[in-house]
């Protein structure tokens, strides 16, 4: 039903009402007419006229009869004659006066007659009233006159009667017409009433339909609101409650009857919020902005009937109806949910704390176990070099094998626990994969030879410098190689290195380790990368593995974003492979090492005769290191703590210093700084010796001026490798191996590591401090540089501090620049120092801008 239809219907009805008034008026008017005419008809003696007219003639006839009798019978009493005359006279006068006939408007035709009658009566009356002697002789004449009179009267009266009849007809017709009009008007009235009735019936039906519809809708709505699990509170713009459903009763504790009509402020709003609530309602009433209405879900505090406050989730909608604006609030009691969330958070925090405690425990245990183990192994190694009989040699061999196995266990468990704790951090650096793989092969070659195996390395295509975690790649590859060597006797192990899917910026490095060993049955292939899997107990025993190696390899590979796999056939040998996606280092030159083995194949021979200072507080380790170094043919000086180490380093120029980190009095880092400051050994290579292997600590060592790191327990092979490296390449480890190439402003991986390690907030704080302190330090540094080499130590300290901070934050170019400056200053190369200081302000500005951009970027 459209508005147009309703309006049309209303106009139709109004028209009908108007018509009704009109028709009723018409009927009343006609009715009045009928009544009037009827009463006129009743009152007027029409029929009496006819009667009188005929009586007149009769009276005349009877008078004439008496006259004729008196003529015929002389002496007859004339009383009757006189009476007849009087009666005719009476009737004639009645007619002649015309009071009755004139009213009937027929006097025209009766006029001559009445005149004639009047004349007759006037002429005759004196005769009748006179004496008999006058009357008698006149009787014959009177008879003739009367006869003539009678003829004229009859003719005239017939005319009158006819006229009167016509007139009566006319009056009847007129009355009939009024009646017909009245009937027509009545019919119209009935029609109008019928139409009105029809219209009203229709309106009534519509109203009933609409009422039923409204009823249905409102009952549906009531059911919806009533069964809502959320509390529904409806209030008017005056803040008074209009509706309050069952759920709201349950939430707030008020019954619906109590709630309706009450002010929300008194009912469900906590005392401390009432003022704000009233201000808000006032603002909305005044047409101001709405903060809560239509704002979606919000959390807010409400209060129950018991005045207990509790958290609710609230969503308020607004609706403007005929009775003004109402607000509909859906309320959900979220006390339980919040409690559950709190419980979950607590549980999570507790679990995390427990996990952390476990990890800490593992780290402590590993440290505490590996240090004595280091002593045991070193002592065994030394003991085995002394002359011994066959029996002693055999026992020593067993002891060494057992110690190594124990070390593997410890390392394996530690790795797994670290990975499980999510502490595995991939630390990408520039890596020459060819060199890395070759060095690993070189390390493993003697082990392979022990079991009669030959180890081959094939690099199938030249590889550029890439970004990767050399330590972890080495771990995976060593795991593959040691497995291959263990399960192969008098066979061959082949390592293949192949770059694939190479683009301008990235490539996938595939490394395959193929052996000719016993192979793995198809059934076991799926399980080899699971934890604690020993395919064959007998082999396990023979090989002495923990079953953790491949599992760790898999996790490491996955952590580096690579894939790992194995193909094998029992009895035919196995092929283990990894595929690692890697970013190319910008501007790196393609390198091939056609004979890498030849260059690294004889480490021991090339590094003899170095002057080595060992700074170590643990006597066992000191002795072990001394023995190892002497065995390798080096000269050894010992220092029992950092302070003594510094003293000896300054007093005598050494080639290499092996520096323990955790020492009383003066720790390795502080000692290194002091050594770098002055003295004869300030340019020598300082290698950290530590059980700590966390990446950020390595960065700290480097920042302190250390060149490399040896992880306890130390094997003679590793020691030899470090010493060789130092001889071959005097550049500090990890700092600008390629001096020509400017590192990027920011090392994104370094930054990402830091962000994941200390969190977004921590990172932002660190960055803010760096950006805040930086300008002053840069300015101070430039001032010192301009003043010349007078205050060298202060300049050096500033350079060192800036380099450290820059390195930590991953601002690679600034770090490189400051490290170069520091090195130049240490070496007294003032030209290089000046070069490093050039454009430092610009570099600082670019760096901070880049960092600002990085910190707003999402952490990927």
């Amino acid at each position: 039903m459209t508005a147009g239809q309703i309006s049309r219907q209303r106009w139709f009805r109004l028209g009908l009402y108007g018509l009704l008034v009109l028709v009723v008026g018409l009927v009343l008017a006609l009715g009045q007419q009928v009544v009037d005419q009827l009463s006129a008809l009743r009152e007027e003696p029409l029929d009496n006229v006819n009667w009188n007219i005929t009586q007149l003639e009769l009276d005349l006839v009877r008078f004439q009869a008496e006259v004729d009798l008196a003529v015929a019978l002389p002496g007859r009493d004339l009383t009757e004659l006189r009476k007849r005359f009087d009666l005719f006279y009476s009737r004639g006068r009645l007619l002649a006066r015309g009071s009755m006939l004139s009213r009937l408007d027929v006097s025209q035709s009766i006029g001559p007659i009445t005149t004639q009658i009047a004349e007759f009566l006037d002429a005759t009356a004196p005769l009748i009233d006179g004496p008999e002697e006058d009357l008698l002789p006149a009787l014959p004449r009177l008879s003739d006159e009367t006869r003539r009179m009678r003829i004229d009267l009859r003719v005239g009266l017939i005319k009158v009667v006819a006229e009167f009849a016509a007139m009566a007809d006319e009056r009847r017709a007129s009355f009939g017409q009024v009646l017909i009009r009245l009937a027509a008007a009545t019919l119209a009235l009935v029609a109008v009433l019928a139409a009105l009735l029809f219209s009203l019936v229709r309106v009534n039906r519509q109203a009933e339909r609409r009422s039923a519809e409204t009823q249905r809708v409102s009952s549906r709505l009531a059911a919806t609101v009533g069964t809502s699990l959320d509390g529904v509170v409806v209030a008017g713009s005056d803040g008074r409650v209009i509706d309050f459903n069952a759920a709201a009763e349950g939430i707030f504790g008020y019954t619906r009857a109590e709630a309706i009509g009450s002010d929300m402020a008194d009912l469900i709003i906590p005392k401390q919020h009432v003022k704000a609530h009233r201000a808000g309602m006032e603002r909305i009433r005044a047409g101001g902005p709405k903060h809560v209405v239509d704002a979606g879900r919000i959390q807010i505090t409400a209060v129950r009937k018991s005045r207990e406050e509790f958290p609710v989730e609230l969503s308020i909608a607004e609706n403007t109806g005929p009775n003004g604006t109402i607000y509909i609030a859906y309320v959900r009691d979220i006390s339980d949910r919040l409690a559950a969330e709190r419980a979950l958070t607590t549980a999570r925090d507790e679990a995390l704390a427990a996990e952390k405690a476990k990890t800490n425990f593992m780290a402590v245990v590993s440290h505490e176990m590996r240090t004595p183990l280091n002593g045991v192994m070193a002592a065994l190694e030394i003991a085995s070099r002394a002359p011994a009989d066959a029996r002693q040699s055999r026992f020593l061999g067993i002891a060494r094998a057992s110690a190594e196995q124990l070390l593997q266990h410890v390392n394996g468990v530690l790795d797994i626990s670290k990975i499980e704790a999510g502490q595995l951090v991939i630390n990408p650096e520039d890596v020459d994969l060819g060199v890395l793989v070759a060095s690993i092969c070189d390390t493993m070659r003697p082990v392979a030879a022990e079991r009669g195996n030959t180890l081959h390395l094939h690099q199938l295509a030249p590889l550029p410098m890439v970004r990767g975690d050399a330590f972890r790649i080495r771990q995976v590859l060593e795991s593959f190689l040691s497995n291959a060597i263990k399960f192969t006797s008098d066979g061959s192990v082949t390592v293949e290195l192949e770059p694939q899917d190479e683009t301008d910026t990235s490539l996938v490095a595939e490394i395959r380790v193929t052996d000719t060993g016993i192979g793995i049955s198809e059934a076991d292939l799926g399980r080899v990368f699971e934890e604690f899997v020993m395919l064959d107990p007998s082999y396990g025993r023979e090989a002495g593995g923990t079953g953790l190696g491949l599992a760790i390899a898999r996790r490491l590979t996955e952590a580096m974003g690579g894939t790992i796999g194995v193909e094998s056939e029992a009895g035919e040998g196995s092929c283990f492979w990894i595929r690692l996606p890697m970013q190319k280092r910008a501007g790196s030159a393609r390198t091939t090492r056609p004979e890498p083995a030849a260059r690294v194949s004889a480490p021991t021979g090339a590094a003899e005769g170095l002057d080595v200072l060992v700074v170590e507080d643990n006597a066992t380790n000191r002795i072990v290191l001394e023995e190892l170094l002497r065995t390798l043919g080096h000269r050894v000086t010992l220092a029992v703590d950092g302070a003594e180490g510094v003293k000896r380093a300054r007093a005598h120029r050494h080639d290499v210093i092996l520096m323990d980190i955790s020492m009383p009095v003066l720790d390795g880092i502080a000692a290194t700084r002091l050594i770098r400051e002055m003295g004869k050994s300030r340019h020598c290579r300082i290698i950290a010796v530590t059980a700590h292997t966390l990446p950020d600590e390595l960065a700290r060592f480097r920042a302190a001026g250390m060149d490399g790191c040896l992880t306890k327990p130390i094997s003679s092979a590793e020691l030899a490798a470090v010493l060789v490296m130092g001889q071959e390449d005097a550049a500090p480890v990890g700092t600008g191996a390629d001096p020509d190439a400017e590192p990027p402003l920011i090392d994104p991986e370094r930054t990402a590591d830091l962000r994941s390690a200390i969190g977004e907030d921590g990172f932002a704080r660190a960055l803010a401090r760096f950006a805040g302190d930086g300008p002053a330090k840069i300015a101070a540094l430039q001032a010192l540089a301009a003043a010349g080499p007078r205050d060298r130590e202060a300049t050096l300290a500033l350079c060192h501090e800036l380099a450290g901070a820059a390195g930590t934050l991953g601002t690679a170019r600034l770090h490189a620049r400051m490290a170069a400056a520091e090195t130049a200053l240490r070496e007294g190369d003032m030209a290089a120092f000046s070069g490093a200081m050039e454009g430092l302000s610009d570099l600082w500005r670019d760096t901070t801008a880049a960092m600002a951009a990085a910190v707003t970027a999402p952490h990927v």
Partner: protein
Amino acid sequence: MKLDFRTATMALSIVMGGALSASASDLAPPGGEVILTVTGAIGTTNSDGAARFDMDLLTSLPQHSFTTSTIWTEGTNTYSGVLLKDLLAAVGATGTTVNATALNDYQINFPVADVAADAPLVAYLVDGEPMSVRDKGPLWLIFPFDSNASYRTEETYARSIWQMDRLSLAE
């Protein structure tokens, strides 16, 4: 107001019954010219089983008059005479129908019950003058047409008999 004649008559009988019955045999014989003869069901007579009235006898009855116009006359006139009910009481009428006859033998009937307290009047004076036969005399049974519309009907017009000289009451 519609009056029930019989009720009125009964009331009258109760009040005046004694006097009427005492005078019934006393209705004096007419001394002068008889102008009205009443016959039929009547309790009182004065000559040959009829009640005959001369002018003196009529004027000895309670007098009444009213002024009205009629459809037969011009203007209004005052008519005086004896109310029919008083006349009927005087003759001790017991009939239920009145039969009135004129000099020319015009005759009308109507029930005694239609005789009201104020009409009709047996008039013998118009404007204080006696009525001659030429002027609807000597007696005119007339109604106060002006005072009540219910008298202005054909039936009443027909009952307005003039030149009346006889009345008879039928059971």
